[in-house]
């Protein structure tokens, strides 16, 4: 059973942490990390690992096994695991702990979040030198395990962890979004499911699915409920639509382009299909998987990392068995505007290392973070959901290839929908993209989703969606997500704050006067000293 408000809180907490770290500068001890020549195995280290799982016990078991295996290789390192089920909660806890200098050692995170962590001083360890260190770097000679070489990390995935030209994380797993389709319903409506979905196709079939019987039930399923198209992540939905249209979202240096005419056009389109009952969202109605599995949805867009919840034979189900419907499930790319040049988002957890006073402790943390990229961990974890390993070493391994070849052998490890979701990303890795990372990019992402959520809710509440509505929406969302505090270089910590308060002016004036007095005093002392020396020479 999944939880709703834990996920909601995550979205809200993102805003609370943003922009709040710049005041910490100078309050902490300097921790400039320099890689030690050797790792001191005689010294014991206790490190903390904050890990995110998809509310999936197999994943938590894999984390525990990875820790046990790692501790067996490095008996002087103890890894304490703290489990989370959403990224936002980790983010909020990290923000809180940066302020008290009690961050974890190793943490699963999003690059968007790291950009905010970096506004604190010496928080996240830059990995550039660690990656290539001949002893302890990737594939290093002094490692106790078989680590991938840097070249064996899928370059695109590694580049997603680069901020301002420096690597601050390692990719851990990668996923994308997929469209899970009730093929039985599509064909019942008289359509043939294409290999590549287009937005036109999705909207047309969804509209057809809204037809009702005289008794008020839906013609397609005979039930009281039918939401033909549900999207789990409306922020991804807007970002992907804009990317497919080649419209602005944000520039690499943090200039916001979201509030443009293409966005408006898309919102009008979404409003039209909401009004007819063809579309809704996770936040408004519930998990797409639950509607899909109950035969109350035709197209469900969700992460490939949610594949085990999708379909009549899904190993994980959140609805009662008597609600579960029998239908044929197909996995497709998310709908496209230009099927010849598909675009879908790349997402998934990354892992970062936090700085500490003791370089040996940081090195121990790095060793563990790096171990998460070993074949053992990569292959085991990627098999739990529609993830793919982030290294070619793991992807090309005999073990992983055999796993892929056994699609559909059972409805658990080899669940066909899950393996199709993984293959979707493996086949289209070059069609994935990421958005620019800067301090505030997490809030911009939130704003992108908020636009769709607000329009959808407003339509359902019979409000008119016109130019004036969109204009006000842009203004409200800008303010709600604090986007007006983000400057073009993404350095929200350097935002314009308006004129200084009077008390600050007074304080600064006093400080200026004190400095003046000090300088005058020192000058007078100097003159006096020289005069004295001259007189007594």
């Amino acid at each position, binding site marked *: *059973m*999944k*939880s*709703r*408000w*834990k996920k*909601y*809180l995550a979205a*809200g*907490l993102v*805003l*609370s*942490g943003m922009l*709040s770290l*710049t*005041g*910490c*500068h*100078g*309050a902490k001890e300097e921790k400039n990390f320099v890689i030690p020549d050797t790792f001191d195995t005689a010294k014991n280290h206790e490190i903390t690992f904050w890990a995110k*799982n998809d*509310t*999936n*016990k197999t*994943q*938590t*078991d894999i984390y525990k096994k990875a820790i046990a295996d790692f501790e067996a290789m490095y008996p002087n390192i103890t890894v304490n695991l*703290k*489990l989370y*089920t959403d990224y936002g909660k980790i983010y909020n806890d990290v923000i*809180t702990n940066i*302020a*008290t200098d009690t961050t974890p050692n190793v943490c699963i995170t999003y690059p968007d979040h790291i950009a905010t962590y970096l506004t604190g001083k010496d928080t996240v360890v830059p990995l550039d030198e660690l990656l290539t260190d001949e002893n302890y770097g990737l594939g290093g000679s002094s490692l106790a395990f078989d680590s991938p070489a840097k070249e064996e990390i899928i370059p695109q995935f590694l580049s997603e962890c680069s901020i301002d030209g420096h690597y601050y994380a390692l990719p851990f797993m990668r996923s994308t979004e997929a469209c899970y389709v009730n093929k039985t319903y599509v064909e019942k409506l008289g359509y043939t499911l294409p290999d590549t979905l287009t937005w036109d196709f999705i909207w047309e079939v969804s509209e057809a699915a809204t037809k009702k019987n005289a008794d008020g039930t839906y013609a397609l399923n005979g039930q009281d409920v039918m939401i033909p198209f549900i999207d789990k992540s409306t922020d991804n939905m807007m970002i992907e639509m804009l990317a497919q249209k080649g419209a602005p979202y944000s520039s690499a240096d943090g200039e916001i382009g979201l509030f443009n005419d293409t966005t408006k056009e898309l919102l009008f389109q979404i409003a039209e299909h909401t009004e007819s009952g063809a579309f809704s969202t996770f936040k*408004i*109605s*519930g*998990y797409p998987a*639950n509607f899909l599995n109950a035969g109350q949805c035709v197209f469900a867009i969700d992460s490939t990392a949610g594949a085990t919840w999708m379909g009549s034979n899904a190993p994980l189900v*959140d*609805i*009662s068995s008597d*609600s579960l419907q029998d239908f044929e499930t197909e996995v497709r790319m998310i709908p496209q505007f230009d099927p010849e040049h598909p675009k879908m988002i790349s997402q998934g957890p990354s892992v970062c290392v936090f700085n500490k006073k003791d370089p040996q402790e940081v090195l121990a943390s790095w060793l563990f973070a790096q171990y998460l990229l070993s074949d053992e961990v990569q292959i085991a974890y990627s098999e739990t959901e529609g993830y793919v390993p982030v290294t070619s070493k793991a992807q090309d391994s005999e073990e992983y290839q055999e796993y892929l070849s056994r699609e559909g052998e059972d409805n658990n490890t080899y669940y066909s929908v899950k393996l199709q979701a993984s293959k979707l990303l493996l086949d289209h890795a070059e069609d994935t993209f990421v958005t620019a990372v800067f301090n505030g990019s997490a809030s911009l992402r939130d704003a992108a989703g908020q636009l769709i959520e607000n329009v959808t*809710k407003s339509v*359902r*509440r*019979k409000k008119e969606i016109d130019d004036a509505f969109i204009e006000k929406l842009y203004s409200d969302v800008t303010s709600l997500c604090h986007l007006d505090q983000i400057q073009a270089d993404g350095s929200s910590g350097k935002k314009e704050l308006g004129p200084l308060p009077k008390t600050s002016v007074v*304080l600064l004036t*006093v*400080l200026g006067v*004190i*400095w003046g*007095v*000090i300088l005058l*005093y*020192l000058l007078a002392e100097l003159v006096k000293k020289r005069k004295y020396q001259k007189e007594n020479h």
Partner: protein
Amino acid sequence: MKKRLVLMMALSMALAVPGCAMAEESTETAAETETVSEAAESETEAETDVKGEGVMTHDEYLAAETDAEVVVETYVQAKQSWWEDKATLYTQDKDGAYFIYNMPCTEEQYKELVPGTKIKVTGYKAEWSGEIEISDVESFEVEEGSYIAKPLDVTELLGKDELIDHQNEFVSFKDMTVEAAGQDADGNDVPFLYNYDGSGSQGDDLYFNVSSNGETYTFTVESYLCDKDSDVYKAVEALQIGDKIDMEGFLYWYEGVNPHITSVTAAE
């Protein structure tokens, strides 16, 4: 030399003041846990529950369409969480319950919303995975009056269609038997799980199974409503399979009944 030192020290202190003030601006907020059980001693029974002008009765609220604007007067029974100036509340009047989701309010206002507090709420009726609630609250105000609901025993309604008529109400379950919630790593039956599948750890939601009349149901200790330090959280962690227990809680809904338990005691 001493004068120079004094001047330098004064200067450093003056410079340090703003830095410290900023560093201390922690925004952490802990979810408060206040349940009806804890406030039962101050229970006061409202004599009448006459609605103000323009305020819906509970029946009118139930009859309203999803996404319609609703105005209700109700009484706080428990507070689940507050963050970013939004509160989630279990509320109830004498006729039925209203789950209020993400109601804008300041932390100071939230502290004043003790169990029994009467509030007038204007928002929109919503349904999320079967849970009927008021969301996108546009305004609320505290009014005169106090009411704390007594738990309604719904044990006999479990598994029946009528149970949904009491959605979100403060209810009790009597003489139920603790069943295995799952297995541990060694394959042994366990009486509760952290998260629905055991993927969590202490501090996460607790899930446990209880049976009555041959049917087994999954109940939850929602960790934002009752955190790991609460009596009910500890009580569930101490359960043994086969225990006979009485429970109180709120009749939350998620794809079916999913009670959020606030009290567990040995069956009387």
